[in-house]
């Protein structure tokens, strides 16, 4: 008679490390080839081509053109985050206090854009904002302007369109934080004599803060590396770092410099992620649909 437990894996028994690795193997293999290897190769280009050098990184900061692109990227990302937060708060709040059909409608309004192609939503903004676009048509017809305004390819357009595209990533974490605050808390605060503003400041905001941090981080990170919307709505005039990277690769064929730009972007993103490690909560975006 064997003196070992039989090999059944279900019912609360933990798989052995070997079996676990076997289950994880396809994932690890895929991620190694399609994620780790490419990024490592690209970063290697930026540091070791032609020889070991930091010159490509230095160039990004030395040349005013590139520095300006990077500063613009951060500025736009900040504006987008703030605008998204301002727009997301009332929606998340009302969602968290709704039930039944009202909640379903609001949730659909958030989830539909989340899962609609970024390209489609960006295209929609171009249709709205272009020279003979919907906004200009309507303003002209209303007699408010005599000739079309330049709306597309402005920084404002980029911020607006990006805030629109990234808004669901702000709404969902804030909503899930607000939903966790029992209505009794606000009632209790008011019973204890707090004004609406005091209730917000002392009770709601501190409890919602983890969700707000999570949303802001998500939106800021995505905004920093955003490619589609700035490339199309901003054009060359409002170039952000992602478009610059694309240009270096596709037009200049300057892989080492593109690698350096990606390295800078990655460094920024990694530092932010590590600092706010606990705010990165992917489950908020999948559990809700």
């Amino acid at each position: 008679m064997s003196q070992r437990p039989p090999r059944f894996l279900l019912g609360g028994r933990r798989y052995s490390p070997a079996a676990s690795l076997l289950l994880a193997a396809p994932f690890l293999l895929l991620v190694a080839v399609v994620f780790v290897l490419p990024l490592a190769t690209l970063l290697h280009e930026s540091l070791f081509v032609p020889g070991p050098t930091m010159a490509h990184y230095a160039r990004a900061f030395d040349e005013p053109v590139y520095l300006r692109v990077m500063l613009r990227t951060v500025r736009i990302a900040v504006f987008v985050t703030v605008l998204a937060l301002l727009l997301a708060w009332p929606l998340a709040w009302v969602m968290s206090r709704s039930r039944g059909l009202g909640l379903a409608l609001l949730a659909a309004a958030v989830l539909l854009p989340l899962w609609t192609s970024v390209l489609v939503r960006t295209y929609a903004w171009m249709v709205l904002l272009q020279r003979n676009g919907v906004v200009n048509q309507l303003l002209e017809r209303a007699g408010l302007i005599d000739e079309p305004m330049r709306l597309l390819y402005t920084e404002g357009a980029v911020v607006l369109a990006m805030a629109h595209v990234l808004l669901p990533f702000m709404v969902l974490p804030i909503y899930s934080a607000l939903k966790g605050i029992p209505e009794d808390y606000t009632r209790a605060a008011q019973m204890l004599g707090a004004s609406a503003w005091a209730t917000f400041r002392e009770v709601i905001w501190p409890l919602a803060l983890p969700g707000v941090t999570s949303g802001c981080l998500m939106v800021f990170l995505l905004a920093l590396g955003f490619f589609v919307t700035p490339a199309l709505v901003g054009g060359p005039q409002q170039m952000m770092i992602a478009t610059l990277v694309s240009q270096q690769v596709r037009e200049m064929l300057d892989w080492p410099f593109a690698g350096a730009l990606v390295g800078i972007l990655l460094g920024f993103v990694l530092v932010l992620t590590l600092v706010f490690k606990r705010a990165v909560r992917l489950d908020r975006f999948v559990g809700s649909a």
Partner: protein
Amino acid sequence: MSAVRGNRAGRMALNAAAYAVTVFLLLPTLIIAPMSVGPERYLRFPPAGFSTRWYTEYFQDEEWVRATLFSLEAGVIAAVCATVVGTMLALALVRGRLPGKGLVELLVIGPVIVPHIALAVAMFLVFEQLRLTGSLLGFAMAHTVLALPFVVFTVLAALYRFDVELERAALSCGAGSFRTFRYVTLPLIAPGLVSAALFAFIISFDEAVVSFFISDLDRKTLPRKMFEDIDYNISPTLAAVATMLTALTIAALLLGYLLKRGLERRARATAAQED
């Protein structure tokens, strides 16, 4: 009294703001639909008439159709691969003793944290050397990796909701490991798997950045084709495509919702019918 009234006014203002934001979220996308059925060569709101001209143009344009079919193919393969690979990993994470679990978890969220432009350019560099650009295999692999974080998290949630004691019950009823998984575990986590597969498909089908770089002249995905066309001219065909894509997303989300509800009933029925 005044506090109550102030409260109510505040609540109404908040509600109004929330619904205004909802309109802001939906309107730009939805306004494309009526414009796509206008007869004229440039887009106008409201449209000057009704015509399916741009839809016909889409279906008759071989390049559009080919891109769409290619996207569908890549999307289905990526959805299947991501669901299988992601479910295996989720099982290892929840049920196993995985060496270096922290690192694996970092790799799971990696494709979400790392900007897609960085990944896209990096993949472009390596895929060129491996001759994977413009290939179905290349797209399937890239999109599988992009979809994996969402799949893993969806399946993890389903596994955490699942009561392991049910597996013990099945074992005590005489079912072995395989049949326990087949008759008890799988049917109960199936709704999660369906959502995961659907998410993965949508992610692949809509993915624009990586596709922008790893497509080639012959083989490109629908988003890549749209990207090119937007860059050159905003033709009404694009509006038709955008409208159809939005409709497809709505349909997919609805389908996912209905499937999820229906699965519970179906799981019941199969358990009864099979011998």
